């Protein structure tokens, strides 16, 4: 079981550290990184200040293991990492980080898009959009 869930935002320093760790792998020629950043959407005159993420971790981990296994079978990847924040993430902060590495650039794009979409669809993560006036609504992925 790989570590996926991080309490609080995914910081630029964390991302830099992940990149740096892959610089010793000299068969890698291409990385592709997706970052999900919390938007300050305006909904009925109220502005989103942040999203409070929770997760059903006991269910999420086997699903994430399956996702990784299938992605390694489908795409010709050297490395793959998925991180998601839990807790309150403010607008402008990063809550989702998918990191894919391969020998050649053509391998990485489809893998990243696949991982982002399947995590959104299959992993039991819940998001409470908190407005600036402290009211809230529950986020639903389309």
């Amino acid at each position: 079981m790989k570590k996926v869930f991080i309490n609080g935002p995914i910081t630029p320093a964390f991302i830099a550290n992940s990149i740096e760790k892959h610089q010793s792998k000299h068969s890698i020629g291409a990385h592709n990184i997706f970052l999900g950043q919390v938007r300050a959407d305006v909904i009925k005159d109220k502005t989103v200040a942040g999203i409070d993420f929770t997760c059903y971790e006991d269910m999420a981990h086997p699903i994430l293991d399956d996702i990784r296994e299938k992605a390694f079978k489908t795409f010709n990847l050297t490395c793959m990492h998925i991180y998601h924040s839990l807790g309150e993430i403010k607008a402008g902060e990063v809550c989702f980080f998918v990191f894919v590495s391969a020998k050649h650039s053509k391998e990485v794009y489809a893998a990243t898009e696949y991982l982002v979409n399947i995590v959104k669809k299959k992993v039991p993560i819940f998001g409470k959009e908190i407005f600036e006036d402290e009211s809230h609504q529950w986020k639903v992925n389309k």
Partner: protein
Amino acid sequence: MAVIKYFGAIAEVTNCNEEQIEVSDLKVSDCLELLNEKYNLNTIDVSVALNQNLVDRESTIKLSDNDEIALLPPFAGG
């Protein structure tokens, strides 16, 4: 006894994250009906997981002691 876990918008309605339920001869579908009567969850699009696997809401699988049922609102990761 089985444990029922609530998440997100559902936990907000039930006002708790989990509770125990007596399971003798109870099907998944019956269990949901009971919880729906108790909490009026009809306004939320609920998915159901039995022991961490999604099952149909109409499932006739019978619950056993130590089963974990989870009521999940729409996913919102990413």
